[in-house]
């Protein structure tokens, strides 16, 4: 199994940490993982993105030009990455603030309105876990149990009490996501 994912959005949206949780989850189920962020000042006020690869084999190139799955959380990210999803691949987006929607027909397109939900339910802290839940619903690449193990490993002990909240957010995401095409 091998999954090549790009997650892209505004700087503050927790894109990088979502990728990290995903990578940790892969690690907990014994996979090879790589996590490669865009970096530097272009993040500032602009977009941030991260490429995550989970694989059963040694990962060769950590930098990719096309992806199995793209998760895009703002307009510029959609504009940039829609075309880079492999035919038959998956595109997940949060439509908040979008004025142009995805148009490809050779990929699976999902919408998840996590931003709106998070604002409405005052759960902006777990916003990125909602997205992750959505992803896992349509691409069950890691077991939720391994996500939680990964959280346990990566979070400092004093934050472990937050794990149930995160689990809940994942469930929410699984419910929120809907296929568009």
């Amino acid at each position, binding site marked *: 199994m091998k999954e090549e994912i790009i997650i892209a959005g505004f700087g503050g949206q927790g894109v990088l940490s979502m990728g990290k949780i995903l990578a940790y989850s892969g690690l907990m189920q014994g996979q090879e993982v790589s996590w490669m962020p865009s970096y530097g*000042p272009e993040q*500032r*006020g*602009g977009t941030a993105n991260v490429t995550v690869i989970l694989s059963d084999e040694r990962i060769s190139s950590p930098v990719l030009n096309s992806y199995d799955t793209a998760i895009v959380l703002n307009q510029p990210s959609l504009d940039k990455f829609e075309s880079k999803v492999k035919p038959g691949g998956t595109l997940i987006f949060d439509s908040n603030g979008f004025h142009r929607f995805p148009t490809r027909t050779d990929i699976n397109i999902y919408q998840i309105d996590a931003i709106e939900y998070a604002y409405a339910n005052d759960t902006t802290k777990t916003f990125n876990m909602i997205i992750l839940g959505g992803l896992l619903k349509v691409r069950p690449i890691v077991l939720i149990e391994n996500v939680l193990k990964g959280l346990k490993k990566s979070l400092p002990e004093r934050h472990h009490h937050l794990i149930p909240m995160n689990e809940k957010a994942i469930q929410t995401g699984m419910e929120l996501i809907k296929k568009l095409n």
Partner: protein
Amino acid sequence: MTTAEIINPANLVYEKPKLLNDTPMHYCPGCSHGVVHKLIAEIIGEMDMQEKTIAIAPVGCAVFAYKYIDVDWQQAAHGRAPAVATAVKRLMPDRLVFTYQGDGDLAAIGTAETIHACNRGENIAIIFINNGIYGMTGGQMAPTTLDGMKSSTCPNGRNVELNGNPLDITKLLAQLDGTCYVTRQSVHNIANTRKTKKAIQKAFENSMAGKGTSVVEVVSTCNSGWKMTPEASNDWMVANMFPKYPLGDLKNE
């Protein structure tokens, strides 16, 4: 009178300076750099010096200053803006030449260039944005980071024992024979911003009058690096930066 009626060119009292172009600035929301850019653009416009200006950008968040203010620019290597400016001014003495530098650029890697340009008394102006941190590279400790202040390379706060003392470089520059005007200002409210504008204008005038080097330090915020909101940053600056870097003229000859 309705708002719509008031909004009329005849009633204009403030607008974006003409020399500040429409390119959106890459700075974080609330960053002091933007305010100072605006002042510089305004002053050059008011002094009608666009055709005579050669500005020197640093390496630091302001590296892209050249994208925003419509004059000729050179982007200098990290810390070397005063050297670059020296050459430009010596070779084109009738031009307005100024550097725009951060505290890492001016007071760490560029210490020697800054001190020697000032000591030679180059007829340049140095605009020094002291935000007590390396903004561009993600919030590391700067020479001017305060005792106890946190940064990504002193996550528990600067510890003088481990990290050395904060450096008041402007005080040193005021001691040098080559400087004619050394002042410390800020842009956190309208009153101080107006003063800063006057200071920069004076620095530019000095440099054209051949009086020596002028240094305008602007004690600034870097809300990203400080990990505070822009407003909280202003308050923190007033409470913490000003005592160590008090505003006012250090030298005015």
